């Protein structure tokens, strides 16, 4: 079965800025994937190209093995751009039934309204909705055609906690139908909680790719601290340890494999005041998107 999304060596330059710089990634079907990165990392540009809104300068983009524009024409993709799409002088029902009818096999309207939690708002004018409600209308437009893939560019930016929670409930409802979801975000906890897989993008390329646990491990930000008496250099050679700091009699070991590190410490009988601090994704994110290139940091 072909991938839902495939980008190979894609670049895009706007003026003097290289927004996307050799981006390569594939997303199999049925996954919920987060595209995580700071502002200006190239997330929106990547999304624009994979929706066929503009062509890449070089490289290839395909959705379900075909040209993105074709995939959109065939109704296999639904999308929620970062903003826009809320027009004046129409009701929720009028807008959504129009969008639905552009697709060959749309979700039934009642189903769509229920999934997006809009049933009670069906006869309201879309330009008179609150920010959170309008966002759910935009989400409903993305899923109206019951597409196999939905792409959401920072769907929860500018939403309050409650509105964000409601939108995620709607999105999980859609994902349960076996659909593929790709969303960009700069909220780390959102990527951590909602995605099966996180692709960290920085300066137009992939900085890390995996489950959030894998990413945390990859940047070796779990620390194992122990109290040591005397010489401590041997601790740096323990399995998993990539870096070590010693302050007084306390050693902080940064480990890419904290389990192995702890086992080795136990075998050596050096587990005095042992403390394991898991990294949060935020630390990983900062490490991955710091000004220094990641490769040098890990070497």
């Amino acid at each position: 079965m072909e991938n839902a999304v495939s980008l190979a060596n894609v670049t895009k330059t706007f003026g003097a800025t290289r927004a996307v710089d050799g981006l390569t990634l594939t997303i199999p079907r049925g996954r919920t994937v987060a595209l995580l990165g700071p502002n200006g990392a190239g997330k929106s540009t990547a999304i624009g190209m994979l929706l066929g809104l503009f062509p890449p300068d070089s490289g290839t983009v395909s959705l379900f093995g075909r040209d993105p524009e074709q995939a959109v024409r065939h109704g296999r993709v639904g999308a929620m751009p970062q903003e826009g799409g809320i027009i004046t002088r129409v009701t929720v029902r009028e807008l959504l039934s129009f969008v639905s009818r552009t697709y060959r096999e749309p979700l039934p309207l009642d189903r769509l309204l229920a999934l997006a939690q809009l049933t009670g708002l069906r006869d309201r004018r879309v330009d008179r909705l609150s920010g959170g409600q309008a966002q759910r209308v935009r989400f409903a437009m993305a899923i109206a055609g019951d597409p196999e893939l939905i792409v959401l560019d920072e769907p929860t930016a500018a939403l309050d906690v409650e509105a964000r929670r409601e939108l995620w409930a709607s999105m999980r409802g859609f994902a349960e139908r076996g659909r593929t979801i790709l969303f960009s975000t700069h909220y780390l906890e959102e990527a951590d909680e909602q995605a099966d897989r996180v692709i960290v993008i920085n300066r137009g390329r992939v900085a890390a790719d995996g489950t959030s646990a894998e990413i945390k491990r990859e940047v070796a930000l779990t620390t194992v601290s122990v109290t040591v008496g005397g010489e401590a250099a041997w601790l740096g050679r323990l399995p998993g340890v990539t870096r070590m700091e010693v302050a007084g009699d306390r050693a902080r070991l940064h480990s890419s494999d904290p389990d192995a590190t702890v086992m080795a410490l136990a075998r050596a009988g050096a587990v005095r005041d042992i403390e394991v601090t898991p990294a949060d994704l935020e630390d990983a994110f900062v490490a991955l998107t710091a000004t220094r290139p990641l490769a040098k940091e890990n070497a």
Partner: protein
Amino acid sequence: MWGYIRLELIRSVRDGGYIVFGVVMPVVMYLLFTNLGLAQGDKHDAAIFTMVSMAAYGALGSAFNNGSGIAEDRAAGWLRQLRLTPMTPAQVVAGKVATGVLGVVPSIAAVLLTGALVNHVTLTPGQWLEIIVLLWVGTVPFSLLGLGNGYRLTGQTAAMANLATMLGLSILGGLWIPVTGFPGWLRAISEWTPSNSYAALSWHAAFGEAPALREIAILAGWLVVFGLYAMYGYRRAGKTA
């Protein structure tokens, strides 16, 4: 595409600008001009002449208003949203042109009905049919000019440009004041405008005269110019959408 046209027509009907400039104003002005004795000459002739002028003026109003809607839609990210549905760009453009073409119908109908029912204008069925068709089909160049502005300019600017163009063409084309009252030099300019040629075709028909080839040629010329302009605007907008 029918769904798109339907949606756009619903939006037009709820648009105050469309109702005021496209439907209410022309009818009110028609009644004022004809019943306050502002139009010169024979009363029945004036009622016919002004009926055509005001129907043309109303049609211009809604054709240009439709164009301004495009700029609003662009600003609202609606055109991009449409690109993300299975609709093709050609369908979107055709739908918007069709909305413009259908949107002028109430404007023309309102003034013609006022003419027939209130001002007791009597024409042969053939003449009615002729002016309805001419007034209707003749709006296409103006729809295209309005769309061109809508694609090329941003929201407020497009609305202002379209309103100014609409008023300018109405006045210069002799829809408000007949060109017979113009000084010679202004009259010469007026005879080259699309709005004058557009209305003149129906004036001739309403008074049982044959259409002048010159007017058809001028209107067709402007149709080509405005068509190219709309295409240029659309291409430019596509690059920034």
